[in-house]
C-alpha cells in the first residue's frame, strides 16, 4: 500500500489513482466539495453550518425519492418510475388531511401513506411484470391517474396541514443538533447498503438487472422481485411525501412533480446507469446532494429565472459527460 501510494512515477499507481477518481461516488463528492467552495466564493455564508443543514434537508427529500427510483433502475429492463412525483404529491395531501395539524394523527397518516404508496407501486409492478407493459409506459399512465386523483381529493382547495411534531422532525435539531429527517436519510442509506450488499434480495436485484434470462435460469423469482422493487419505489416516494408536508407546512398542488425527473438524474449522477444491473445507493445520495447544491447556487447568484434555467440545463449536460457514456460503435 505504502509504496503504491507514494507519488512514484510508476504507471500502475497513476492508473490506480485515475481508476479511484473515476468512481461515480468519488466524482460526485469532488463535485459537491467544488460546488460548495464555488458557492462560498460567490456569496460568503453559502457554506455556513446552517446553510449546509438546510441544503442537506432538501437533498434528503430528493434522496429518499431517489432511493426507490434507484431500486427500479437497478432492476433493469428499462426500469424507470415516472409516477414517483404523483405518489409524493398524493402522500403529502393524504398525510396533511389525516393529521390536520394534530400530532395524534401522525401514526395513522404514516401508515395510510405508506400503504397508498405501496398500492400504486404494486399496480405498477403488476403492469410491468405480469402484463409486460414497458415501465416507462406503465408509470407514465399511472402518473396521469395520480394527477387526476389529486384533483378529486383536493376539490380545488388547498387542504391539510402538517402536525407540529412532523414539522419539527424535518426542520428542528433532533439528535446532536441534526434534524430527524437527516437521521432518517442516514438510516435509509444504511438499510439500502445492507439490502443491496448483504441480502439475497439485493443480489437478486443485480442479477435480474444485468441478465434477466440468466437470473431466471438460476432460479431467481424474477417477477416477484421486480414487483417488490416497484412497491418499494412507491413506499419511498410516500415517505418523501410525508417529509415534504413537514417541510412545507401544508400540501399544495402537485408539490411532488419537481421530483420526477430529478430523482432519475440523481440516480444517474450517482453512477447507476439507466440500463441497470450496476451501481448503488451511496452514489445516488451524493448525486441528490450535488443536484440540490447546484440549484441552490443558481438561486444565490443574481440572475433571473431564464438565465438560471439555461445555466442549470447546460451544467447538467456537462456533468453528465463525467459519468458513464454509452459505448462507441465498433465494427
Amino acid at each position: 500500500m505504502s509504496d503504491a501510494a507514494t507519488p512514484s512515477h510508476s504507471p500502475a499507481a497513476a492508473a490506480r489513482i485515475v481508476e479511484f477518481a473515476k468512481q461515480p461516488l468519488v466524482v460526485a463528492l469532488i463535485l459537491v466539495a467544488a460546488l460548495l467552495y464555488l458557492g462560498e466564493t460567490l456569496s460568503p455564508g453559502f457554506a455556513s453550518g446552517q446553510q449546509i443543514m438546510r441544503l442537506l434537508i432538501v437533498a434528503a427529500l430528493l434522496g429518499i425519492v431517489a432511493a426507490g427510483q434507484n431500486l427500479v433502475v437497478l432492476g433493469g429492463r428499462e426500469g424507470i418510475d415516472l409516477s414517483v412525483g404523483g405518489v409524493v404529491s398524493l402522500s403529502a395531501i393524504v398525510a396533511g388531511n389525516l393529521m390536520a395539524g394534530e400530532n395524534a394523527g401522525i401514526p395513522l397518516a404514516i401508515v395510510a401513506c405508506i400503504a397508498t404508496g405501496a398500492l400504486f407501486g404494486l399496480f405498477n409492478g403488476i403492469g410491468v411484470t405480469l402484463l409486460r407493459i414497458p415501465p416507462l409506459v406503465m408509470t407514465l399512465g399511472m402518473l396521469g391517474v395520480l394527477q387526476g386523483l389529486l384533483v378529486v381529493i383536493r376539490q380545488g382547495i388547498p387542504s391539510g396541514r402538517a402536525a407540529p411534531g412532523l414539522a419539527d422532525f424535518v426542520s428542528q435539531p433532533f439528535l446532536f443538533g441534526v434534524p430527524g429527517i437527516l437521521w432518517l436519510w442516514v438510516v435509509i442509506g444504511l438499510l439500502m447498503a445492507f439490502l443491496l450488499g448483504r441480502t439475497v434480495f439485493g443480489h437478486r436485484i443485480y442479477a435480474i438487472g444485468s441478465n434477466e434470462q440468466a437470473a431466471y435460469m438460476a432460479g431467481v423469482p424474477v417477477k416477484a422481485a421486480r414487483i417488490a422493487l416497484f412497491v418499494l419505489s412507491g413506499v419511498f416516494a410516500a415517505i418523501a411525501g410525508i417529509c415534504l408536508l413537514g417541510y412545507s407546512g401544508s400540501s399544495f398542488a402537485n408539490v411532488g412533480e419537481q421530483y420526477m425527473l430529478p430523482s432519475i438524474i440523481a440516480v444517474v449522477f450517482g453512477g447507476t446507469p439507466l440500463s441497470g444491473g450496476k451501481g448503488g445507493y451511496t452514489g445516488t445520495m451524493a448525486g441528490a446532494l450535488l443536484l440540490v447544491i447546484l440549484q441552490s447556487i443558481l438561486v444565490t447568484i443574481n440572475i433571473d429565472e431564464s438565465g438560471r434555467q439555461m445555466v442549470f440545463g447546460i451544467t447538467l449536460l456537462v456533468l453528465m459527460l463525467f459519468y458513464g457514456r454509452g459505448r462507441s460503435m465498433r465494427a
Partner: protein
Amino acid sequence: MTMASAPARPQSRSALKRTFERYPFLPALIILVVLIVLNGWFQPRSLSFVGITGLIKTYLALMLLAVAQTYVIYAGDIDLSAGAIVSLVNVVVVGFMAQWGGDGLTILAALGLGLATGLACGLVNGIVVAALRLQAIVATFATSIFFTGLALYIQPVAGTPAPTLFWRTYGGRILDIPFVFYVVVAFAILLVVLVRTRLTLRLLAVGDGQQEAFQSGLPVTAVRIGGYALCGVFAALAAFCITGDTASGDPLVGGKMTLFSIAAVVLGGSALAGGYGTVVGSVIGALIIGFINSLVFFVGTPSEWQNLVQGLAILLALMAGVLVGRGARA
C-alpha cells in the same frame, strides 16, 4: 431489443396476424372507432362538421408532436424536450411577428425562423445524445430545461398576442373549407413523402439493432441526429398550430405536451425500444387522447373527476394497445 419477437416464425400464420403485423396501428384504430361511436352516441353534435373541425384545431398540435416523437422513438431514442421546443418556437414566432409588424410576409419570415429554431433544437438534442453518447432520457431532460430557460428569456410571461391575420387564417376558412383541413392534407402528403425517404428506413434499422446497423455500414450517429432534427422540425410545426389555436405566446405552453406525445406514440402501436412503428399510429394515438378527453366531458363527468377518468382511460388504452399489439404479433 426486439430479439424476443424474432425467432421461430411459424410457416402458417393466420391472415389476421399478418394484417396486424403489416399495420401495427390496427388496435389503435379500433379503439379510435369505438371512441368516435361513443362520442356520437353521447353527443351527436360532436361528430358534426363544426365539432370535428374544432377537435382537429385543438389536437393538430399534439398529432404533429406525436409524429415528431415517433421519428426519435423509431431509432430507440426518446425526446423529453419536445414540449419545451414547442414553447420556444411559440415565443420566437410570436415575438418576431409582433416586432416586424404582422403582415403576410413578416409572418412567413417568422415561421421560417421558427422552423430554423426547431431544427437547431433538434440538432442540439441529436448531438448531445448520439454524438456525445449521453443517456437520452436524462440528456433531453437537461436540454428541455435549457430550451425552457431560453423561451423565458425571450418572453418572461405569457400573453403577447399573435397578429390577427395569423390566427384568423388558422381558425378561418378558404373557399368555404376550414383552413385546418388544408393543413391536414399538407401534413398527410408530407408524411407520405417522409415514409419513402431513406432516413425513415435507416432510423428503423438503427432502432432494430444499433450494432447490426453499424456493422452493415450505416452512419448510426448521423442517422440518430437526423431523427432528432426531424423531431425538432415537427415540434416547430406543432408550435405553429398551438400559436394559431391560442393566438398568443406562452413560454410554458408545450411543457405538458411531452408526456402526452410519448403516450400517443405508444398508443399508436410503435415499440418504445425502437425499430418498429408507424407515424399513422401516432396520429391515431393523439386522436385517441383527444376523443377520450371530449368523451369524458360529454358523458357529464363532474369537473373535478374529469382528470382522473381521463387518466384511467388513457392508462387502460395504453395497456390494451400494448397487450393486443403483442398478442397479434406473437
